[in-house]
């Protein structure tokens, strides 16, 4: 996608995303409605990963397309997705280092 992302936030609660994510981060979520795209837009999330084979509907996809927010999907669970991405070097929005 020609995009570099260093930080990620995972949640199904969009208010938590609005409160605790940071600009230009990746959102990992199990929620697939249009509010996820709106949340990503206002929180300046760069891309979204839907976990556990959850597929967004056509309205969600077209809104993401309009807002130029790439959507990705995985069959993995939230825990496995986060673990794998962490292992590959992605870090949290909290700024904590391990």
């Amino acid at each position: 996608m020609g995009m570099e992302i260093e930080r990620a936030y995972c949640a199904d609660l969009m208010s938590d995303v609005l409160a605790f994510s940071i600009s230009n981060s990746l959102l990992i979520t199990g929620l697939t409605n249009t509010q996820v795209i709106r949340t990503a837009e206002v929180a300046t999330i760069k891309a979204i990963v839907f976990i556990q084979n959850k597929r967004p509907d056509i309205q969600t996809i077209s809104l993401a397309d309009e807002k130029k927010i790439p959507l990705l999907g995985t069959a993995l669970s939230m825990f496995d997705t986060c673990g794998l991405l962490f292992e590959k070097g992605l870090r949290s929005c909290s700024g904590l280092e391990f």
Partner: protein
Amino acid sequence: MSSSEGVFFLTGKDFKNAGAASSSLKGILEDMGIPSSIIRRVSIAAFEAEMNTIIYSVAGMMSYSITPEMIKIRVQDMGPGIPDIELAMKEGYSTAPDYIREMGFGSGMGLPNIKKNADVLTVNSLAGEGTTVEFTINLSPAE
């Protein structure tokens, strides 16, 4: 920088368009060349206030006023009102039904999130009449 003002009308339970007003507002701020860190704060606070109106009330409106000094947003709804504002300001306190929570909202973070992003926040509410949330974000650095 020029000034701008306007209003968006919000329809209760219209989840398809929930967030559209905040999205339009974000576009206006971008066109005006407002710094992106400020735009993020305004958009998040406006989105939370917009969602509150969509979730809890029949209808409402969001008006904005942008001057070189500040951005002022006022969201007025025709909802049930908030009986205890102090309690509603507490993180995690919510009266939202389950179907709202399944949408990812109603976790009791709305007003606290607005407060976190605003420089000044006032909430006025009258039971049975509605709620007005007004917040200001300063553009010129505070002395």
